[in-house]
């Protein structure tokens, strides 16, 4: 990956060269309709990434294929180069999450990266709702996600970014070296609808500034990519203003080129942000699929 912000991090790790076996996690997930349900018909994997099978735990949408991505290394370390490809055939519905928070471990050389590609076909519906990302002190992480979907398909994509191990050793907040996350959304045929790139280098410019994180610590970044009609149905169900005195704020905005909605949540701790993202998830699912999100598992 040739990316300007990685220029300072070209040194190789002493433990093992970057991207070698053990550091090149890979997943290819392919979903297709099998009768009334969606099945995981293609599963290719390489450690440290692991998926075992699709389960069907969603009581509101029992045909929804639910997949948990596991990182058997227990965290992303320097020199890791992960790739994840997800494709949903026409009419499929799936929910993809992670088994635990993505911990981006402390680094003293090189960086870690993740490249993701998500392709949806007509009328497909994917909820991609991983657990939060926690960038440890001195970590360097680059993520690039490319999404391709037609207007009839829907992707709910939510990421929760922690400031670090906030409650560890006196507090580790915005102590990472680099967090660079880019996402692009195209229609089949290549027309770009929307893109965003967050480039956070706390040593160059503090994320605590007014207008950036502005004193908040946790960011919930949700994208609902769906039809224009679906977007308006979701907006109609949302409260007019999402600002609260009790320590969190949120707002929804229509994306360019009819791509869908952006919903951002700011809070001080992960739980209120996750709860707010979950509420949005349920509102969106109700508007798009006619069913709310399932009851929360107490252990998640």
């Amino acid at each position, binding site marked *: 990956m040739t*990316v*300007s912000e990685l220029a300072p991090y070209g040194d190789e790790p002493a433990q093992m060269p970057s991207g070698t076996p053990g550091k090149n996690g890979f997943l290819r997930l392919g979903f297709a309709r099998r009768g009334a349900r969606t099945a995981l018909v293609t599963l290719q994997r390489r450690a440290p990434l692991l998926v075992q099978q699709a389960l069907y735990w969603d009581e509101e949408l029992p045909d929804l294929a639910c997949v948990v991505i596991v990182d058997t290394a227990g965290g992303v370390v320097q020199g890791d180069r992960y790739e994840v490809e997800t494709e949903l055939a026409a009419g499929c519905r799936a929910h993809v999450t992670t088994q635990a928070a993505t911990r981006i471990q402390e680094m003293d050389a090189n960086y870690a990266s993740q490249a993701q590609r998500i392709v949806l076909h007509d009328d497909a519906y994917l909820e991609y709702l991983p657990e939060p990302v926690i960038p440890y002190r001195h970590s360097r992480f680059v993520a690039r996600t490319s999404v391709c979907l037609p207007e009839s398909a829907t992707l709910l994509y939510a990421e929760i970014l922690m400031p670090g191990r906030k409650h560890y050793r006196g507090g580790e907040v915005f102590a990472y070296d680099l967090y*660079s996350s*880019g996402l692009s959304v195209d229609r089949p045929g290549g027309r*770009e*609808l*929307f*893109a*965003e*790139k*967050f*480039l*956070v280098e706390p040593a160059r*410019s503090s*994320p605590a*500034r*007014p*207008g*950036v*994180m*502005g004193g*908040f610590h946790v*960011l919930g*970044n949700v994208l609902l990519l769906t039809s224009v009609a679906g977007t308006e149905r979701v907006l109609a169900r949302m409260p*007019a*203003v*999402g*600002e609260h005195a009790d320590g969190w*704020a*949120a*707002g*929804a*905005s*229509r*994306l*360019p*080129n009819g791509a869908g909605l*952006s919903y*951002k*949540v*700011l809070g001080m701790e992960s739980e209120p942000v996750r709860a707010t993202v979950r509420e949005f998830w349920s509102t969106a699912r109700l508007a798009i699929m006619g069913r709310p999100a399932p009851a929360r598992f107490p252990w998640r």
Partner: protein
Amino acid sequence: MISELLRALQFGDSMFPVGGFTFSNGLEAAISGRVVRDPPTLAAFVRTATRAAATSDGVALLEAHRGTRSGDPYRARAADRALYARKPNEELRAMTVRMGHKLAQAGARIVGGGTLGGWLRAVTEEATPGTYPAGLGVLFGELGVPEAHAFAVHQHGVAVMMLGAALRLMPLHHLDGQAVLYAVDGSVADDYRYASGLTPAEMSAFTPQVDVLAANHVRAHVRMFMS
């Protein structure tokens, strides 16, 4: 050199009729959200906005400028579309396109010529969104204003727009506003050095609080500004 300076002054002037006075670039929302309360928080908020502009709007402006200087109109249009696709907030998109369309009309009328006529046509026929930074890059490229000066004029313009709005939105002495502008302008040279090495695919902006404030401003009951 004198004529290029005068072109930069005329078309970059806050009084140039592109409707800049109707927008606050998120400042109204920040003040009503109590994020901006006094000159220090105003300065920090304006600096956040100019930093984000440098790595997004500024990159599109430079690409449009370079495309125009090299005789390739499609680079400007590609930069324009890429910038528009990277603005998640509908009010801020409306702001940049409204100002951009007025600038395109003004440029074609006052300066004329094939390049600016072609840009206006592309914008009116919706072949390209017509964002203000891309349009300014095309105009200054055509007028021979050096790219660093074009970048600087745009950055300065972002700060001036916000400080002009601040004078109407909060208790602020004119000279305090000018002091903020002077300080913020001090970052432009470094911002240019950084932005001039980026490609449009590398455009970035990290302003979640601005995004949340601007999102809620859309439906606010009492508004003086359109963004």
